């Protein structure tokens, strides 16, 4: 037992940078997904049909392919072909970001469509242009409605991020595996890795739940039925 805990204590300093790498991947991807997802959703709902078609195709591709295939495609194919020499970390973050952007755009699209037509009518009746109405009336409500679905991307990305092991990103699992190769205690180390993932996952979800509560509209959707 003491030997096991010693293994845990010894490996923690080596795993710590892996935790930062994993979190870095997830947060960068979430950010890319947010920055891309909102405009994509707006184009999907309000754009002209050729633009809508481009977005639909994008979503179709990035939701249709396994992450590992996407990672290999970009790491061994697209980026080298473009002559771009970027670290594995950034390629992984970008691929995860592109993929979550596809999912996030669908979350935001659903949230925009859930806003009643009357909101647009009222905004326009006051003399707002369509883009003013979208920015000041539709989006603030849609983004709030999207929050529960959007924060759900965090645990998905976190668990998916371990796939980046395959292209050699020094994230949590990669570093764990390196330790196992040295000290041959797979059970100890992988239980430790699992525990760290669980902690990252649920502490992150706790933070997002607080954000959701912070942005809830008073008197809106309260009561026992929800």
């Amino acid at each position, binding site marked *: 037992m003491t030997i096991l805990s010693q293994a845990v204590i010894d490996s923690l300093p080596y795993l710590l940078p892996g935790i930062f790498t994993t979190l870095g991947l997830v947060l960068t991807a979430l950010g890319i997904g947010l920055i891309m997802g909102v405009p994509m959703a707006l184009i999907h709902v309000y754009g002209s049909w050729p633009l809508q078609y481009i977005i639909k195709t994008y979503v179709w591709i990035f939701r249709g392919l396994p992450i590992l295939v996407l990672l290999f495609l970009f790491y061994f194919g697209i980026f080298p072909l473009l002559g771009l020499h970027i670290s594995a970390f950034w390629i992984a973050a970008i691929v995860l970001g592109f993929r979550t952007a596809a999912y996030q755009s669908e979350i935001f699209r659903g949230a925009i469509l859930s806003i*009643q037509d*009357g*909101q647009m*009518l*009222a*905004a*326009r*009746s*006051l*003399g*707002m*242009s369509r883009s*003013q109405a979208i920015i*000041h*009336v539709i989006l*603030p*409500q849609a983004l*709030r409605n999207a929050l529960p679905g959007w924060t759900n991307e965090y645990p998905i990305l976190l668990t998916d991020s371990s796939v980046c092991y395959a292209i050699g990103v020094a994230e949590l699992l990669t570093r764990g595996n390196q330790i196992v190769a040295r000290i041959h205690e797979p059970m100890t180390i992988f239980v430790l890795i699992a525990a760290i993932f669980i902690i990252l996952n649920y502490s992150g979800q706790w933070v997002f739940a607080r954000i959701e509560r912070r942005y809830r*509209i*008073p*008197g*809106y959707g*309260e009561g026992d039925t929800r």
Partner: protein
Amino acid sequence: MMTDEIILRVQEIHKRYGENEVLKGVSFDVRRGETKVFIGPSGTGKSTLLRCINQLTVPDSGSIWLNGEEVTHAGPAINLYRQKIGMVFQNFNLFDHLTALGNVEIALLRVKKMSRQEARKKALMELEQVGLSDKVNSYPAELSGGQAQRLSIARALAMDPEVILFDEPTSSLDPELTREVLEVMRRLARNGMTMLIVTHEMGFALSVANEILFMEHGLIAEKGPPSEIPTSPDFTRTRRFLGSFQD
């Protein structure tokens, strides 16, 4: 309060949804300070007519003129005309993410480009007008139906419109809440606001209207001052329609 100056002209408005011709050529003039009330059976195009006036629904043909300027085919200038044509909706359509104050302020800030101070002052004044001074920081979901509709009237009033369109403003309210909304509207009429109202509140219509317009099958079937409804031969269909109310 009514003047001779014609501020709104509605000419030969037609609107069709697929097979269904909702408006079959509706025309009338509105004078400044006038209150016109549209009554008639459901599905005769009353609400569509109001929405055609501020172009929330674009008519198939016909024209709308506000102070001698054409509102139909206005292009981006429609956003200017809409500031002068207020609208109050049956289900309020308040902005749920904003407080009562925010609901009134937002168009002052974003459309009229007022300063924060100016907008706030103006909004507080309009909220007081409709008796909501104690609800300034409440969100729409925290208001009763009557308060919500009074707030939406304040929101329309804040733009200083030349005419306000009321699309069944009390149809989703309980009778006791209806009264407080009608009271606000009655006061507006008395103060010279030009109003076009679609309503089923006959008592209110008869007491506040300068003219009653009875619509049927997409046309104005009969019209005239409310005092003539009980006796005039011009109002036989209106009387039959009202009679069916009293059963």
